[in-house]
């Protein structure tokens, strides 16, 4: 609580100072702060998109430009009100971002940022070549904003509008990150498979995030047009985009405050250079770009976390690790539960599953069933095809032929996230947790498919009831696996074995019918294994069905009701543990035969 209050005081102080500045500062400072506010708005979108979401954009200035030109064109040539200009600007920016995003956001790796350079350049070039937009001279005489008859032509009055918008945008982003869509956004860097496993569509999450960031840029563009009352192509080219990115990187891509700090740092520095360089040399204008680029490169060499990253490292060292308190929230109605199928009814059936990778047959005509309320183990020596089988029945990999039925539905060929939404929750052999998110947030991500708040609702804080339900559920699952007291620690600080258990809690938060575990006991100590065994038995009592792929024979034999043994891609034996243990073929597969 103490840290929280300190933070509130800090924010209040910043707000108070910002409110008083126009009263004491000269008009130059006010204009600079206006520019900083506009830059911060764009950088805020970039912190969300690049820092949190992991998609780098070298074209953000193009969105600023689209909005600025949209409102400029509407208000000068059509003579409409700037407020209609705002709607038009946001609409146009949003639609362009949607179109560009739909085309490019499926691109992987470095292709996405390279494509942003391409459209960033193209759009900026278009501005300079369209007659209606005044070509390279641009559009001038853009009207000033008026609020209820009061003109905002003066930079001092514009100042308040800009900073109120920046403040609201920060608040919106802050709310967003602490919510259901926010957790999905923070999960983006964990890969599409992670999001699909909790029933979220990474492409859609990224697309909405991209449009949100573009709308922030659009808002900035609208403010820019009505503040400067003049637009021309050059402030919207790739160079400008990179400056915005520089702001976000300089401030720190990891935190929202980085956008504000970065915008201030870059613009103050730029102004400083413009003042200082002429004193040193006569070629100041030429040296400015050089000095700027040098600073940027140095920053990436020595402080990739930006200014806020440095600050955070420093405060953490001073404060040490704070003992986090338990999440104490008023109790709310729990999230609705799924009706679990009656014990003994068929939950999952695999029929003649085949998977070929080129000439290699990894899974060859395997069939088995899993019934409600039992624990089934899938075992086999290395290379038996267990993991491939696992990927087939969770629909992570497409099947070559065969059938998988889950709750009487054919799920072969279904996208993984849809299967997850039906109630099939999984864990990963190579743990996929978000190391910089708390345990609570990681588990809450699991409840994604049980809830529905979107970005707008989350940003405006209209999702609080549902959010409390989610957190309560996440806390309940954490208590269930015995990590309830560490809910606010970062997942990355846990040892690997415990991270596996945490993945089980995340899967449980989805309220699954069938829990599919990929080697959950790997890396656990004996005591922990026993605790895991107890937990899984308890879950079985409660009616959850479990399919477990495991190497640890001792652990599996004591736990499961039935075993399916695979070898060389085919099913070898199926039966109760004692029968399987006695089977000669299984012994031969594991130990080698005497013949």
């Amino acid at each position, binding site marked *: 609580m103490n840290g929280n209050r300190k933070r509130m005081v800090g924010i209040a102080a910043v707000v108070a100072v910002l409110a008083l500045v126009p009263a004491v500062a000269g008009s130059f400072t006010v204009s600079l702060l206006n520019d900083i506010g506009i830059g911060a708005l764009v950088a805020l979108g970039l912190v969300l998109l690049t820092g949190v979401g*992991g998609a780098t954009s070298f074209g953000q200035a193009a969105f600023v430009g689209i909005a600025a030109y949209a409102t400029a064109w509407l208000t000068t040539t059509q003579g409409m009100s700037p407020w209609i200009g705002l709607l038009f600007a946001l609409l146009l920016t949003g639609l362009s971002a949607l179109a560009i995003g739909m085309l490019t956001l499926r691109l992987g790796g*470095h292709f996405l940022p*390279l494509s942003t350079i391409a459209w960033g350049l*193209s759009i900026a070039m278009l501005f300079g070549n369209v007659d209606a937009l005044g070509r390279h001279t641009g559009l001038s005489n853009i009207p000033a904003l008026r609020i209820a008859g009061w003109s905002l032509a003066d930079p001092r009055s514009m100042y308040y509008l800009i900073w109120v918008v920046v403040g609201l945008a920060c608040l919106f982003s802050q709310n967003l990150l602490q919510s259901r869509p926010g957790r999905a956004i923070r999960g983006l*860097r964990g890969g599409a498979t992670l999001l699909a496993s909790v029933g979220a569509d990474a492409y859609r999450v990224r697309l909405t995030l991209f449009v949100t960031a573009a709308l922030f840029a659009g808002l900035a563009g609208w403010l820019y047009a009505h503040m400067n009352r003049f637009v021309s192509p050059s402030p919207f080219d790739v160079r400008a985009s*990179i400056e915005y990115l520089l702001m976000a990187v300089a401030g720190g891509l990891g935190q929202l405050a980085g956008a504000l700090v970065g915008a201030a740092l870059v613009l103050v520095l730029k102004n400083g250079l413009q003042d200082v360089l002429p004193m040193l040399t006569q070629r100041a204008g030429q040296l400015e770009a050089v000095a*700027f680029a040098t600073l940027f490169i140095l920053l990436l060499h020595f402080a990739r976390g930006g200014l806020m990253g440095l600050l955070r490292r420093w405060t953490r060292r001073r404060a040490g690790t704070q003992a986090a308190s338990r999440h104490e929230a008023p109790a709310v109605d729990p999230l609705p539960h799924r009706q679990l199928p009656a014990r003994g009814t068929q939950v999952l059936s695999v029929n003649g599953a085949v998977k070929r990778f080129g000439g290699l047959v990894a899974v060859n005509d395997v069939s088995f069933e899993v019934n409600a309320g039992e624990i089934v183990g899938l075992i086999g020596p290395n290379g038996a095809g267990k993991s491939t089988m696992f990927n087939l029945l969770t629909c992570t990999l497409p099947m070559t032929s065969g059938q998988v039925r889950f709750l009487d539905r054919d799920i072969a060929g279904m996208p993984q996230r849809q299967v997850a939404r039906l109630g099939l929750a999984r864990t990963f052999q190579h743990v996929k947790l978000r190391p910089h998110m708390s345990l609570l947030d990681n588990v809450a991500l699991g409840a994604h498919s049980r809830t529905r708040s979107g970005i707008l609702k989350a940003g405006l804080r209209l999702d609080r009831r549902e959010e409390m339900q989610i957190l309560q559920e996440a806390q309940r699952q954490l208590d269930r696996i015995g990590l309830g007291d560490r809910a606010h620690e970062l997942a990355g600080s846990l040892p690997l074995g415990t991270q596996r258990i945490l993945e089980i809690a995340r899967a449980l938060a989805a309220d699954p019918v069938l829990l599919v575990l990929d080697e959950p006991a790997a890396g656990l100590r004996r005591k922990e294994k026993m605790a895991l065994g107890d937990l899984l038995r308890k879950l079985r009592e409660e009616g959850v069905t479990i399919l477990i792929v495991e190497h640890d024979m001792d652990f599996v034999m004591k736990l499961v009701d039935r075993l399916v043994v695979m070898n060389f891609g085919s099913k070898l034996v199926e039966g109760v543990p004692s029968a399987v243990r006695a089977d000669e073929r299984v012994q031969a597969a594991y130990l080698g035969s005497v013949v």
Partner: protein
Amino acid sequence: MTWDVALILVTDGLANGAVYLLAGLGLVLIFSVTRVVFVPFGDIAAFAALSLAAFETGRVPPTIGMVAVLAALALATEIGSLLRRREAQRIPKAVLMWGVLPAIPCLLAWLAARPGVPVAVHIAVAVLLVVPIAPLLARVVFQPIADASVLVLLIVSLALHFLLSGLGLLFFGPEGSRTTPLTSAVFTLGDGFTVSGQVVLMVGAAIVLSGLFFLVFERTVAGKALRATAVNRVGARLVGIRPVRTALLAYGCASLLAGLIGVLIAPVTTMYYDSGFIIGLKAFVAAIIGGLVSYPMTAVGALAVGVVESFASFWSGALKDVIVFSLLIPVLMLRSFMAAHSEEEEEEVEQ
């Protein structure tokens, strides 16, 4: 459009394509070996062209100063890192490598700037003069962060381009220049259709150089080391290839290619200090058609980009660049659909 016009546009496009081909080869070479998308490539080509122009007007090319500054920085970086690793005994070798070696082309250039030196020497020296630039930049800027993510490297690379174009403005000034044609020969093909010697030279140079490229990669140990590093960095290291050294080799080759591009286009386009950027970006479109790894596909892409560009400029001179860059988006989409869907973990952002 008549056939005559189309034919002219195609030859024009092939000449452009030849330039993008060479640039694309350089970009793919650097990317595959070091994972750096080397945006400043075009700037180096521009510097070579401007150096040649300086020779023609009888001036000492300002590039000398630039190379000298970069060499000093690289030497300082190298000595700094040697001292930090307590390997001071290797300093003399470092001085030789980072101080003396880059100074040789500078000295040659200074000597070649006198009147009466033949044009061929000027051309050779202008190319040689820019060869140290990319390796020096790599030593100062990229080697210390060689393990960073592709994205960080890309951002640094873009910043480096702005740094170089700023330096270009500082050293060369804002004026553009064009050199005298390397050849004034004109070939007549049938029906009064003529091809200028310069175009033949450009296309020929592209063919010869890419042939050489192929030979080096297939037949020499150094070429095989480059390929090995491109395929698997750790594996290459295990068999005794030094990634740092192969990276420098790749940068050096790319720099040489950039220099050749510079002298090839200097007579046909007016070059400014920042003209290289657009050339580099168009070569990117070509390189991306090759997925930044395939040389043959890059060649095909380069020729396609050249031809599209020349037709686009016939329809709308102002929008030709918009058209070429927009070409990238369908190409990227096609590539991402063709690419195997491998789940890649993205690196964590530094907090």
